[in-house]
């Protein structure tokens, strides 16, 4: 376990050092016309507040009991963690799923059309134990709910 931990720390550091190069390469390779809508800043942000600011214009969320984040208590395999975010709120504009301890915390953002219900379900990767946060934008405000998931084997490194 201890070597595993050391490896993780090493990986993390090398990841941080390599980020600038990777970001530059991605900029050259990405066909900008197609991906103009993809929020690069938000999805490459290492900080949760930075990601939320870039994505939704604010990082202030109000905790809400109307949102249910469904995820396992213990995830044996961090590479596949099923997550469902559900809310009964009216006028849901978007639902973001965040794994707060991941190298890139913002996992997904679902922009809901006019007829869509406040429900999304997907499977995410989690590097280590942490909170899964669901951020719902409804009526111009941000609401959030979270659930802690314990990860036995991380799914972000190699």
């Amino acid at each position: 376990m201890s070597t595993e931990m050391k490896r993780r720390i090493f990986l993390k550091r090398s990841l941080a050092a390599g980020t600038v190069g990777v970001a530059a390469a991605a900029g050259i390779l990405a066909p900008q016309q197609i991906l103009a809508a993809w929020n690069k800043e938000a999805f490459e942000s290492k900080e949760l507040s930075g990601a939320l600011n870039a994505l939704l214009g604010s990082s202030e969320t109000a905790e809400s009991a109307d949102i249910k984040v469904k995820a396992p208590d213990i995830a044996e395999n961090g590479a596949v963690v099923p997550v469902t975010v559900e809310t009964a709120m009216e006028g849901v504009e978007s639902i973001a799923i965040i794994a707060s301890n991941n190298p890139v915390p913002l996992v997904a953002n679902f922009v809901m059309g006019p007829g869509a219900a406040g429900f999304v379900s997907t499977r995410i990767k989690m590097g280590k134990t942490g909170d899964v946060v669901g951020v719902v934008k409804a009526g111009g405000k941000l609401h959030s709910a979270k659930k802690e998931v314990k990860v036995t084997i991380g799914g972000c490194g190699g």
Partner: protein
Amino acid sequence: MAKSIKIRAKEKGGVTTVKALMTHPMETGGRTDKKTGKKIPAHFIQEVVCKHKGSTVMMAEWSGGVSKNPYISFKFSGGTKGDELELTWTDNTGGSDSMTSAIK
């Protein structure tokens, strides 16, 4: 890349539940190849769009944090049996695929 998407949509009581599975490696770009010691380049789906009768019902933006061979499910109202649903994904290398399916 013709069969990378499986999509099922079912209408019940006015609400259509859509479930979709895509085949994709979803490489974050943060992993290292154990044999060569080199970084595995990022290759993941960035955008998923689902359209019903030409209008977007759901648009998802993803980072590499979504699991390999992604699964999504969502619900919307207004669909009726027999309507066509189109799901398209685009990844960070410019690859894309789409699939249409009728609501059951």
